């Protein structure tokens, strides 16, 4: 400063920094991380928002790696997961939920296309874990256990990897090369797999193999039966057998008129399969109404589009040769179906029963400490450990909703606790962040962007082949879809707080490092809180 400044009237620039206006504050803003509803909902415990964040910038490999920290099968998930995350997505309250599932599939497919592989463990623990069943739960556990440095041997009764993913889900929903590829990728981490190896008794198997722990993940392969008076000549099959036989050389002979009995997803799957096998009529007989059908609505819709018919409020009284006797039902006040006595005849070359499945629990016989009820083995919900120390279980075997995502989640959870158990430690109960509710968002800031619709296979090919019905997103679409994420409850570095502070009291730490409040100058006006799009700032009273 060469200038001789006039006293008092002329001042040096920026000298107001000497005035610490932070002393005016009665409340202070603090950055928080809140649990987004998608993450909270995900049965597989995926950090959905976390991997979408990477996908938003087009860094798909980082997104995939982030995703596969929790779930090793994004290509499968992106096809068969019922994506309850989307049901709770806050964006649904603005326009439509983020297409999480379709982005997940895109990432899964991208990984297969690019040949991305999992990294092996940093060090070996020297422990050996037996996994029974190469389904979603077993392979998930194998993946996580291997990552943690344990030797893993998977014993699978069937001839192929995938368990119920292979034998319960039709190809047109899950192409086999996709399933195979994601299973193989786990194997390539150094997981030992023994196919066609049925474990008759777990205690014996562990003893013989010198396993330090076991994770049991046997699928529900046994079809439930219902008593239907039938003539010998009537052609009655069970759904799970039909679907399983689709994996073999010989496709099942179902005839031209196929009736499926049941209202779950398996009923839908088998009806659609029948249609593809050439049935002119595939009719589902279900005793309640569409609203009460356990099958997922989008699957029902797709089936109806493909020409599958449904007789609602109907039960099968009798199966005869080439025909069924159907009784009309009515719903009582409680919504339970009641017979009306009104009968009709339905022509059918075959009847497929899709009334649910059971698990073969015979391998547990004689193992002390196990508790079995309602056809499943009881586990500690926190650890997935059975009553027998060192034996854990998950998937269809334990009390839970039966689907691939839940099974994958069990595998991960069990793996973490097996690891802790093997190391003699305990996993500290992590404090869950408070939920990122819609009310905390400032939705003004998000651009209007309706959900991207995935392309679907044209109808002619859908009903005549087992080509995949649901297409994937293009990269552009996937990027768009990822960018619809609101990042509920977690800073996504939109710079709003940094920009809207009238006092420059927010320090920007740089890309990926978020922000920090400068409490020397923050007056506690709360504009940053009000204008944070994703609700990642709380206002708390100042302590005096």
């Amino acid at each position, binding site marked *: 400063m060469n200038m001789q400044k006039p006293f008092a009237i002329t001042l040096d*620039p920026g000298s107001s920094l000497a005035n610490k206006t932070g002393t005016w504050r009665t409340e202070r803003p603090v950055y928080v991380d809140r649990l987004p509803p998608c993450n909270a909902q995900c049965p597989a415990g995926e950090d959905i928002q976390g991997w979408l964040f990477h996908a938003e910038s087009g860094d798909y490999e980082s997104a995939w790696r982030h995703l596969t920290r929790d779930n090793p099968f994004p290509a499968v998930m992106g096809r068969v997961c019922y994506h309850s995350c989307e049901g709770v997505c806050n964006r649904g309250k603005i326009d439509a939920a983020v297409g999480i599932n379709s982005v997940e599939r895109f990432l899964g497919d991208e990984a297969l296309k690019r040949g991305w592989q999992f990294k092996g463990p940093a060090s070996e623990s020297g422990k050996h874990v037996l996994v029974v069943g190469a389904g979603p739960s077993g392979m998930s556990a194998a993946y996580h256990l291997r990552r943690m440095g344990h030797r893993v041997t998977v014993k699978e009764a069937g001839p192929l990897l995938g368990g119920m993913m292979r034998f319960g889900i039709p190809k047109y929903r899950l192409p086999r090369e996709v399933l195979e590829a994601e299973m193989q990728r786990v194997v390539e981490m150094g997981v030992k797999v023994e196919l066609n190896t049925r474990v008759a008794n777990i205690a014996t198997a562990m003893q013989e193999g010198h396993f330090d722990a076991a994770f049991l993940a046997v699928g529900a392969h046994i079809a439930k039966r219902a008593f239907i008076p039938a003539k010998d000549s009537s052609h009655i099959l069970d759904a799970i057998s039909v679907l399983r036989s689709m994996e073999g050389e010989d496709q099942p002979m179902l005839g031209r008129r196929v009736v499926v009995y049941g209202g779950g997803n398996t009923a839908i799957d088998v009806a659609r399969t029948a249609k593809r096998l050439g049935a002119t009529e595939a009719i589902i007989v279900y005793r309640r109404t569409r609203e009460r059908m356990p099958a997922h609505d989008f699957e029902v819709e797709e089936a109806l589009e493909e020409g599958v018919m449904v007789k609602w409020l109907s039960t099968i009284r009798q199966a005869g040769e080439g025909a069924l006797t159907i009784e009309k039902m009515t719903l009582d006040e409680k919504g339970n179906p009641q017979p009306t006595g009104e009968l009709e005849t339905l022509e059918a070359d075959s009847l497929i029963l899709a009334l649910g499945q059971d698990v073969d629990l015979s391998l547990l016989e004689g193992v002390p400490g196990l508790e079995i009820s309602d056809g499943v083995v009881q586990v500690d919900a926190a650890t997935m450990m059975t009553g027998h120390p060192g034996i854990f279980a998950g998937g269809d075997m334990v009390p839970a909703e039966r689907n691939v995502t839940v099974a994958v989640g069990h595998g991960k959870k069990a793996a973490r606790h097996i690891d802790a158990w093997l190391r003699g430690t305990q996993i500290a109960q992590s404090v869950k962040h408070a939920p990122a509710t819609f009310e905390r968002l400032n939705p003004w*800031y998000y*651009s209007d962007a309706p959900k991207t619709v995935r392309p679907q296979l044209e109808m002619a090919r859908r009903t005549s082949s087992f080509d995949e019905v649901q297409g994937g997103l293009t990269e552009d679409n996937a990027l768009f879809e990822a*960018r619809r994420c609101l990042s509920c409850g977690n800073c996504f570095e939109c710079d709003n707080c940094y920009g809207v502070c009238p006092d*420059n009291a927010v320090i920007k730490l740089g890309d990926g490092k978020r922000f920090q409040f400068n409490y020397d100058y923050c007056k506690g*006006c709360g504009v940053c809180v009000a204008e944070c799009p994703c609700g990642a700032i709380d206002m708390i009273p100042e302590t005096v």
Partner: protein
Amino acid sequence: MTAPIKFYQTGTFTVGNRLLSPEQRSVQSSLERSNSLNSGHRACQGCGEALGARYAVDAAMRATQGQLIAANATGCLEVFSTPYPETSWQLPWIHSLFGNAAAVGTGIAAAMKVKGRNNVRVIAQGGDGGTTDIGFGCLSGMFERNDDVLYICYDNEAYMNTGVQRSSATPAGARTATTMAVGAEPGAQFGQGKNVPLIAMAHEIPYVATATVADLHDLETKVEHAMSIRGARYLHILVPCPLGWGAASQDTIKLARLARETGLFPVFEAEGGEVTAVTKIRRRVPVEEYLRPQKRFAHLFGAKGQQQMLAGIQARADRNIKRFGLLDVETAE
């Protein structure tokens, strides 16, 4: 699908956006922003004017590579930024009087011209009182001569520095210390007040624009555009005043947003006296939504509410919407 991805999660509504290329990002999102109005100023909590001033001046600083001088009218902005012995300004800045900021700007611009320093640009700034009332003569003179000054009015719709008295920018119905909420027609008189952006347009100066602190990108774009033009330019920025409006300090931006979304504060640009662009209303809301959070309009509501006055204010918003075409055709009534 080969179309480029244009959608960026929050579009351009947020201050920054990590998905945008750096040159597309706002001045305010930058680590290098000049913070022309530095921390430590004595503006009230949630001051819209402090925010608007930093937005505008930082943008002008970037547009001129820091070759900028500011003249400032008396008022809140001056008082809270430069009480001896500290100033918050980081650019050459002068405060002379309440009513002469535009003329001081003219003088600085003349000095720069005569010295051949054409790269140094000038802004003059003031509140609505210093602009639409006491400074109006000098402002009009600066416009009429087409002096090379960008004048920025930070409009908080009353004389806040002296304790919330009515100015010619005070909206009808608003309570101020000189238009109290008493009598048969409480608040500021209907049928009074002046629209300086339109008056500025009548001078046919190169550039006139309005903006709010709720839309930073729009504001910065306008400042940047203004600095690319020579001659007299006018930017009128709505800056809510928590104290004077009787609003919560955290609602400053929200209220500015609502002012625009109701149609009460039309956001537009004009060149040479003709409107060239209008910021459309994104989600139209009735004026009530804007008025209710402000205590200065409290007398319009409640048991002894003023339905007729409310209707009058709504009519004003509707007129703006029609006059400026603030709604897209398909959503317009």
